[in-house]
């Protein structure tokens, strides 16, 4: 389904230490370039092997996803979850799922069930429990806002 494809609005050049400047068409929307060696052939998902990313790179990628104007596709989400598994970081996986859910905005009720449907099998494989099971679809604890102290 192409309903949730990221909107490629403009050509963006992104500087990277190892790979140099690369345009959108090579890397994909909001290109995240890695310090690790990148495969030159294949689809851009295979080129950017998110599953082998380090913890630092994964967090940078998730911050990009939060800043980007769109909901990531299920293929990307699966790769990032595999990357979290490889880095032995469970909290990061839940945080990423929260980000993906909230990127839907007003259309959260339409996008989130579709995404859960697509990534459900991999989540069961890896052993990640859904946000509803964790109870993180509603606020769990109350924290006083700094501006109100």
């Amino acid at each position, binding site marked *: 389904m192409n309903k949730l494809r990221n909107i490629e609005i403009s050509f963006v050049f992104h500087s990277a230490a190892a790979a140099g400047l690369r345009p959108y068409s090579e890397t994909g929307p909001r290109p995240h370039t890695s310090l690790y060696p990148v495969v030159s052939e294949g689809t851009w998902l295979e080129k950017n092997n998110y599953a082998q990313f380090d913890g630092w790179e994964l*967090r940078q990628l998730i911050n990009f996803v939060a800043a980007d104007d769109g909901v990531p596709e299920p293929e990307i989400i699966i790769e990032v979850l595999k990357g979290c598994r490889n880095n*032995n970081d*469970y909290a990061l996986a839940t*945080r990423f799922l*929260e980000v993906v859910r909230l990127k839907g905005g007003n259309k959260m009720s339409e996008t989130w069930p579709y995404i859960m449907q697509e990534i459900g099998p991999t989540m069961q494989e890896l052993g990640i429990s859904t946000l509803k099971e964790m109870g993180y*679809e509603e*606020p769990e*604890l109350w924290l006083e806002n700094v501006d109100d102290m």
Partner: protein
Amino acid sequence: KQPIWVAPSRNIALTSVNRDAPATTGSKAVLPGHEYYPGKEEYSPVIGHREIVGHGEIPYYTDSFTVPCPAIRFREVDEALGKLREKEKGDWKLLSLEDKKTLYRASFNSTLEEVRAPSGDWKRCIGDNAILMALMFLGVSVIGFADPQYEPKTVTNEWVDAQTEYLIKRRVQPVDGIASWYDYENNKFKPTWSIFTTKETSKSVKTLSEKE
């Protein structure tokens, strides 16, 4: 897997700290999940013994939707958390729900839903304003009416009596107002007028009707 060493490029926030305070080293006991990472000793006076996990020149912790993954974890590592981290390296299906929640709260202070949750501050604002308005009304009613200096002269009975005498003589509001409530043949107010009187004004009304 050893992380790549990236030396901090500029010690902006640390220069004064390093000069004034004595040098501190990182934690002495290396617990699992708390091994060596770049910047551990340099930033320990700023962030304590919390693990640096991401980009950020001055690694502070923030909770926000725009930067969901901050540069450091939230909590320091205890023995129990160290054991959990060892467990995390195995199969995640063996983690219980409590383990998962403690792992999350160790890395992050609040969930993104809690960041979005409303604070209910508007109730405090309206309540404070209501209290102040009540105090103001109290002050006006007590101070404003206690001192005869602050009493407007149009409120006194003398003024009102003279006013009613004038109005009745001029026959103002003959249809729905004061002249319609006054019986000009018998020179007294009609019985309906008694609804709006108090003890004092009824005295003045009697004197008026006697005068006429």
